[in-house]
């Protein structure tokens, strides 16, 4: 789980980002550091990411050209994030996931317009996870079935997409890092401090959202991901969670609902929203008791 607040990139001051900061949101930036250290030990070929900020209403879409290079400016926080990106796409794997999902009856489309601007959620999560930008990426859009139907419909579609993702990766023979680019509770403040990185202004929007975040984190640590899936509708609604974009449900399904403990690298708030950097390591999966994948 790799949330995408542009604030974290802003606070890290990479050369690609125009605005510069003094500091900020260290608990989450250090969480990403710990996850990066673990991933440096892992051997993987490709990053597969689902971002809530490429929002599609007509099916699920996949980037379908080998490279995208442009500037990303955050529409809400343009003062913090104006980032020059250069992304290589694993079009072969994108197409394989697309085809697997299509075979399952899902509405899917490849995005092959070279002028397309990659969403900032994808860029932020990828940069914080792998700032070297040396791994190709598969970018999957967020189908907004929650807005059109319900959280339950969104979950079923995301779960189906997760199964298709896992099958395609297995068939490809590649080792993939999956990223669900979402926060947990997601009620923003409606004003911004004069100095964005002023940490005296940063806290959870309300206590009940914090309680929800802690409940979800505790369940992840205990390997209760099936149970998380079961309470996802309540969590999504009551915590105004960014799980409404489907990434959380997708990654749990693609990982076949891990029963082993997740590593919670850290938790922090960004302009009132709750964010956690969480890892489900591959070696834990390999050592875990295998549960038959349900269809």
């Amino acid at each position: 789980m790799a949330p995408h607040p542009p604030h974290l990139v802003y606070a890290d001051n990479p050369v690609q980002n125009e605005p510069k900061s003094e500091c900020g949101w260290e608990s989450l930036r250090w969480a990403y550091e710990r996850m990066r250290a673990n991933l440096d030990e892992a051997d993987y070929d490709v990053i597969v990411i689902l971002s809530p900020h490429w929002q599609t209403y007509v099916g699920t879409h996949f980037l379908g050209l080998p490279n995208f290079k442009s500037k990303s400016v955050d529409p809400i926080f343009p003062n913090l994030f104006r980032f020059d990106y250069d992304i290589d796409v694993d079009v072969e794997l994108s197409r394989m996931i697309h085809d697997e999902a299509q075979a399952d009856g899902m509405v899917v489309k490849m995005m092959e317009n070279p002028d397309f601007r990659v969403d900032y959620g994808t860029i932020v999560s990828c940069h914080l996870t792998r700032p070297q930008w040396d791994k190709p990426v598969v970018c999957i859009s967020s189908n907004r079935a929650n807005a059109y139907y319900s959280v339950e419909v969104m979950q079923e579609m995301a779960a189906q997409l997760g199964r298709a993702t896992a099958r395609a990766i297995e068939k490809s023979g590649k080792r993939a890092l999956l990223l669900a680019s979402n926060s947990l509770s997601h009620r923003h403040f409606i004003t911004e401090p004069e100095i964005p990185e002023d940490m005296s202004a940063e806290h959870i929007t309300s206590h009940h959202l914090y309680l929800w975040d802690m409940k979800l984190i505790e369940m992840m640590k205990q390997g209760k991901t099936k149970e998380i899936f079961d309470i996802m509708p309540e969590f999504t609604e009551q915590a105004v969670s960014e799980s409404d974009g489907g990434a959380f449900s997708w990654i749990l399904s693609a990982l076949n609902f891990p029963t082993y403990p997740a590593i919670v690298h850290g938790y922090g708030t960004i302009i009132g929203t709750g964010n956690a950097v969480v890892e489900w390591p591959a070696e834990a999966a390999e050592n875990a008791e295998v549960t038959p994948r349900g269809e």
Partner: protein
Amino acid sequence: MTGEIVLSAIVPVHPHPLLVPEKNEGWGHLRQAFTTLRQRIIDSGAETIIIYSTTWPNIIGHQLLADPNPKWTLVDADFHDLGSMPYDFHVDTNLTNAWHNANERRGLSSRTVNYHGFPVDVGSVVSVSLLNPDNRFKVAVVSSNIYANRSETLVLSKACLDAVKESGGKVAVICAMSLSNRMFTELIEPSEDRIHSLKDDEWNQKILELLEKGRLEDIAQLSRQIHSQIRVQKVVSFKPMWFLSGVNGQTNNLKGEVLAYEALHGAGGAVVLLTPTENSAGDKEYDEDDVEVFSGDRSVLEGIEEKEVATSTATSNDGNSDIDTPAINSQSAPKPVGAYPHARKVGELLYLSGVGSRTPNTDEIPGGPCRDENGTSLEYDIAAQTRMCIENVKRVLESAGSSLEKVQDITVFLIDMERDFAIYNQVYSEYFADIGPTRTTLAINALPTPIAIEMKVIASF
């Protein structure tokens, strides 16, 4: 010269009429309607187009595009296969900055955005591309806050109107929006396009019927029902009609003309022209408050202890915040009669706007008004008015965490010094003799409402 809104319109947000009008007869109709609307804007003498776009969502207050020359190529997130949309237009920065300042004066959180590559939204790009292909007009674009409800949207529209009047120019206001916004969730052939459901179509037809009669405020009053009936619940409320009616003075005094209504991947897309007129449908009674100043009803999860006091902060044009001088509005005092808060805290002092003698909630004047609707003088009770005036001062002070005991300076305005001074002075002494603030009493011609006394107060905490 005072600026004015000479024309308003509704246009769809989808890229189909811009990129592939030839692929579906209805998309071609919409394209033609855009062309007709463009000519009407030219004929109106408008120099600037204001765009309120529902496809520019925002969470931090209200954003106004301030890049003098936005230039980029947009590709739609869903309909990327239809082609790219290059844009290159000119922003009316004077109007935009005036609007931003007016937003702040009316208590809204507002900021201007001037960054190369800022992602202008699809609704705005389609509007600009089809209505302004030769950059004949300057453009002002505002975001649509996802949390904003009626009161905030209405105040935004009034701030817009303040800026238009101040500009001295002629302006056309465009709402880039869908009617019903439920699209098909599967891929369809262009020839298969139709309104998603009969229910959506019937609601759309009803909306257009009312708009054709110029009944814009009536549609605005139905916004919540429309949202629940035919809108995918992506944001809070169907708000463009609140904005459009607000900039048109919240009336039905308009002439409506439906230039086109067609399906866009299932959603309802219409081009509707609205021009001011004196001979349209009458206004209907309405039981929601008219709002002049936004006092932050979205801060429900913050500042619980400030239940009675709503404070708002705003970011100024240069990015500096006036967070140290929060505006204060009391729920227990009479509502302001203009674009100002009840009070503003500066350092350790509290500055009150002029406080009159209207009764909170009812606006009745104790002892009767000093003049009737025709301006004829009436007998009034200055003692009762003085007492109410001081009680209202007390309400504002206490809402802000101060009190009468902490008043430092008072300026008193009387409309008839000779008649009223002695009695007013006696009531005044009942409250302030032991407190002893400095005081100045002035005689003036009149006050905005038919009251005889007003007080301007500075207090400490």
